């Protein structure tokens, strides 16, 4: 992933707008980072532990014995709406673009 056409495609997938005049620079910088990522091609992972990753966390309780849920009173819809700082709204409805 390095040329400008591919970067434009990726912008579309990522829902990002990058001005045409910035595409070349973005493409060049992404190419530099991808060359860093390619270092992993040299890594032999045949000896890698196949277990799931928990971010180094020592699991001191098995996953099927997580805490039991304790029901709590939830906010009412009125309370929840009252806590929102209304943004892009009209007559109590949230405005949205056409889908």
């Amino acid at each position: 992933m390095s040329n400008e056409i591919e970067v434009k495609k990726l912008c579309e997938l990522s829902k990002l707008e990058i001005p045409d005049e910035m595409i070349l620079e973005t493409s060049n910088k992404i190419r530099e980072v991808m060359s860093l990522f390619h270092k992993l091609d040299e890594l032999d992972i045949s000896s890698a532990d196949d277990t799931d990753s928990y971010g180094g966390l020592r699991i001191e309780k098995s996953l099927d014995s997580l805490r039991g849920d304790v029901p709590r009173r939830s906010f009412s819809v009125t309370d929840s709406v009252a806590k929102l700082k209304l943004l892009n709204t009209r007559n109590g409805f949230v405005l949205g673009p056409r889908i």
Partner: protein
Amino acid sequence: MTNLLELPAHVVIGKIKGNDLKAVEYVSVLIQRIKDIDYKINSFISTNFENAIKQAKIVDKKIQSGESVGMLAGIPIGIKDNISVKGLRNTCASQMLRDYESPYNATVVTNIEFQDGIVMGKTNMDEFGMGNTSEYSSFGPVKNPWNSEYVAGGSSGGSAAAVSSLQVPLALGSDTGGSIRCPSSFCSVVGLKPSYGRVSRSGLISYSNSLEQIGPVARNITDLALLFNTIEGTDAFDNTTACSHKKSVINSLDQITSKGYQIGIFSNLTENSDIQVQSKLMEMIKVFERHQFVLENIDLRLKEFAVAAYYIIATAEASSNLSRFDNVRYGYPSNPEGFEWNRYYEKSRSLFGDEVKRRILLGSFVLSAGYFGKYYAKAQAFRNMLRTEFERLFKKYDVLILPTMPILPIKLGEKISNPVQLYNFDLFTILANLTGLPAITLPAGFSDTGLPIGIQIMANSFEEQKLFDLAVLFEDESKFTERTPTI
């Protein structure tokens, strides 16, 4: 006034509890300090002065009436601007969230307020925590208090700079790849990245969930332990928090020395550092040798793959996490009427900065169907291999020592156009994030030109106490934490 500013937080707390000092007086002095100097440093994005005074009065009233007060009684604390504080703006230093006000407190903030700590304001940072210089803030870069031509480090640059420049005695940062330790090293303060699962992430605006932790920044190890003990522990709002552990304590020098710690020194990492950084590491080693600890040079296998694996995982998680910023659920006033959904979404997300956009694009790419195995899956496999390597090392050693950063602080603007070079500077700090291990950075002295240098100590998961022990010992001999910058 100067003496009050320089007093350690634990001493101030003693004075406030003993009625020798009013909390409101202390908070007022710090507010004046921020007003006087922060325009030179740019460490705060927003302040909470009015409420801070109110809270200080409540603490004073409690003491006057004989009520018990918490262990942070009357201490103002800076909170990184990606940690939610109810009623305050939570911008993540991004224009995307410039008007977003947090409707609830992060668990760490609730804990601080429960202990009568006072939120002084929200500190500057790299946008969404993506950077190691704090130059990628849409509110302007943070400047290093020791020399304002240099970066403060990042991404928690505002927190480290505010503590270093005596604007607050304590601050919270978040550490995804060194974001607490890098700025703490560059600003000559103490910073801790806790074990993954030790501190609740509830209320932290996520960038890379499997790597990041909230942690404390302070000017000395006793103050750091005080804030760490306040924020650590299990939390029903964060299922990755682990079972309770003993609170950290400040042991006596005799107690620490008698523990006879085995220490490994990452010699194959250190040799690639700036010569002045290496020299400070040697000085720390000599301190530990004098206490009869066993020190051995060791090599870290696989180090050459760490930066690539880290940035693949971090960008992948970032692209997922930041997809929520569509300007409907979070964002800024912008009328969506007349737009087709995708165009509106793209338009509103154009307020992300260049580095954030770059990481979203990279993350979307490494997660895409044809490349998932080549990049993301392989990076996760590497992560397990690295963890196995550290498990091997911790069978023999209690702690591991290495520089915090391989370089001295750089000048503002010096490297901002070269992301790969900036990424490579993270090699020493990302190891703790990839493995979930705790790591602390300690002020270890200054370069020939007066720029701070930090040294890092790593321990096994949930063994932060060992880090505190060695930090106490080093701090007692080095006295570097007593120095403050002239601003």
